[in-house]
């Protein structure tokens, strides 16, 4: 174990660091630990440079309490951190055997799921899976590349309409039409990405928002897309087998969602994903490191739009109907809320956020049926508000969640999960 001996710096190059960097550190590199009641000082080597010559001094502030209580063996503190020992650990799809096992268990549960629940629950899970695809796509753009989009309802609409139109008007089979819808959406994403190269912050927000509005307006006024009435989804057929049950739709949607999730995790571990993250952290630094900003930014828009387009295509079949009115600004905001609530820069967070918000969306529509709260809210509505406006409480709850997350937990549900994980890993201490 680690002995508490004084480590003498050889170069004298000591610099105080923020303790949060400890996530990247590995106890193997930590040479010495001096703990007094007031402050914790650790001498350690940087895991990347792996040079013993540049020890760093950590003077704890917040994490001190958690990790470095006097007397806590550092190895346990180290185990509570996410350790990476070499490059291959960074690119592995599953970080550890535990993660692999958990993933397999989760997939097994998804397979077993339809045998135990009814059609309505499957419908809800379908919606969750579709929203999860959108949230992952949007997270690639917002959480990983650091761009802003308030126009993803537009991509969603493009995906839904192109999938249906390709099948109805051009007679494409579903297995071709769905990816084609994704690529059409990606093309629009690429086009929208071009002006966004020069824009940032509020300017980017308004440009993407304008795009979303324009798409909805054009679709709802065009004869070709069925105008305000929308389109009926054609029968969902794979080969000669027509899928018309909830279980069948569930299978298709969940399979697509799983494939796209794995693809996203994979993508984010490659050069492309790291380029996205570099752009998010500092555009200028990324450019200086040789990352082609224009290519990767537009690529990020295109990938994000591809995901959203595929989700849109699936949505057309989950609802059996597409209408332009549903692809409004509120939908774009809801997508963004899923990403924020789930956690920026986390694929798992996106899924959690999509699940939570979709569930809330459906439950809050019928909040008057919830036992105690429903009656109470009904009473409040009668006295101060209007009973027929009660479903609007959904907006209020969503808005409150968004604000609360930004103020109290900027990392979203993923942040809560990480903190819980850390807490339990070093639990008895």
């Amino acid at each position, binding site marked *: 174990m680690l002995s508490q001996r004084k480590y003498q710096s050889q170069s004298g190059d000591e610099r105080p660091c923020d303790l949060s960097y400890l996530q990247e550190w590995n106890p193997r590199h930590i040479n010495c630990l001096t703990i007094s009641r007031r402050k914790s000082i650790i001498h350690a080597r940087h895991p990347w440079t792996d040079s013993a010559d540049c020890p760093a001094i950590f003077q704890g502030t917040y994490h001190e309490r958690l990790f470095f209580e006097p007397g806590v063996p550092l190895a346990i503190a180290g185990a509570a951190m996410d350790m990476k020992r070499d490059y291959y650990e960074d690119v592995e799809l599953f970080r550890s055997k535990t993660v692999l096992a958990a993933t397999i268990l989760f997939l097994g549960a998804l397979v077993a799921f339809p045998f135990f629940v009814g059609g309505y629950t499957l419908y809800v899970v379908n919606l969750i899976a579709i929203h999860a695809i959108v949230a992952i796509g949007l997270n690639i753009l917002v959480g990983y590349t650091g761009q802003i989009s308030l126009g993803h309802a537009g991509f969603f609409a493009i995906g839904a309409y192109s999938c249906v139109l390709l099948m109805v008007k051009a007679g494409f089979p579903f297995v071709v039409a769905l990816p084609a819808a994704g690529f059409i959406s990606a093309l629009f994403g690429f086009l929208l990405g071009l002006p966004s190269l020069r824009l940032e912050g509020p300017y980017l927000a308004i440009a993407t928002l304008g795009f979303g509005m324009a798409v909805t307006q054009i679709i709802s006024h065009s004869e070709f897309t069925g105008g305000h009435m929308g389109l009926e989804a054609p029968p969902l057929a794979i080969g000669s087998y027509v899928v018309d049950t909830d279980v069948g739709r569930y299978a298709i949607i969940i399979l697509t969602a799983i494939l796209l999730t794995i693809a996203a995790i994979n993508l984010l571990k490659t050069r492309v994903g790291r380029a996205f993250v570099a752009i998010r952290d500092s555009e*200028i630094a990324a450019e200086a490191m040789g990352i082609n900003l224009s290519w990767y930014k537009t690529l990020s828009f295109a990938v994000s739009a591809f995901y959203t387009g595929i989700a849109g295509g699936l949505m057309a079949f989950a609802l059996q109907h597409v209408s332009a009115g549903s692809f409004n600004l509120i939908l774009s905001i809801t997508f963004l809320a899923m990403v924020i609530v789930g956690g920026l820069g986390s694929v798992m967070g996106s899924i959690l956020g999509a699940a939570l918000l979709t569930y809330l969306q459906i439950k809050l529509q019928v909040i008057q049926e919830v036992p105690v709260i429903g009656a109470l809210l009904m009473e409040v509505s009668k006295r101060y508000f209007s009973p027929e*406006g009660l479903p609007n409480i959904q907006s209020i709850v969503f*808005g409150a969640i968004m604000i609360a997350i930004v103020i109290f937990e900027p990392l979203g549900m993923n942040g809560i999960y990480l903190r819980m994980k850390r807490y339990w890993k070093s639990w008895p201490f």
Partner: protein
Amino acid sequence: MSLVGDLIIGGLSIGACYALVALAMVIIYKTSEVPNFAQGEMAMISTFVAYTMMESYGLGFWTSGALTLLFALGLGAVLEISFLRPAKNPTILSLIVITLGAEMILYGLAGWRWGAMQLPFAVPFSEYSGISPGGVMITEMNMWTFAVSIVLMAFLFLFFRFTTLGTAMKAVQQNPFAAKAMGIPTRRILTFTWALSSVTGAVAGMLIAPVSTLDPNMMLDPMLKGFAAAVLGGMTSLPGAAIGGYLLGLIENFFGGYVSLEFKSVVAFGVIVVILCVRPSGLFVRHYVKKV
């Protein structure tokens, strides 16, 4: 000739409303760099309050208008204190998300309280009669819109140019730390900024409600257009926002009159995207590149 005249008057009239919303946004953005997506809903709630005072409590138009402005003042301040102030080191994305959250909350509250019905907002000026010099109809409503917007704009320009408070607000925008060091109460200034902006928005809301309808979706379109106008003008320039608003109103109305009425509301965003491609920081502001 008459069609052109009508289009110009209509465009300027709706443009004045856009300009007011744009000004309200610019006031906030100038001082605290928050793109306020809740602006429209703040104005919408204020307009509903005015409506309720007139309908339920039987107050006159001018009394309820004045009380509404007071309400708007309070609403802006409360929103800033409760939502913006607690955010620690917010990024631009978190600021956008906070204002979007505030928008959702206000939208839900309005829907809950007043329902989705379209209510009539009665004003003591006629929408149909007025003067018609040279065959161009200028209704009383148009005239009031012009007058109110011009007076309010003039007031805002003078306020930012000549009063201590206005100068303090500019100082807070340029350098919050230096402003604090100079003894400017930055937090109170920010709260006041929101209050002022909320009042400006409320005026726009009460000018828009008579010609459109009064329902929770009322301000969605004007807010986006106002935002677009602010972006067109450059987000940090008050005259830019005003000119952007009028320009957008005119472009939109002419497009609606000559090309296609259906796609009237799309053209504004098309124009925005094209202009932003050429001038990424709007028409009237020098492009400013952030240093590392």
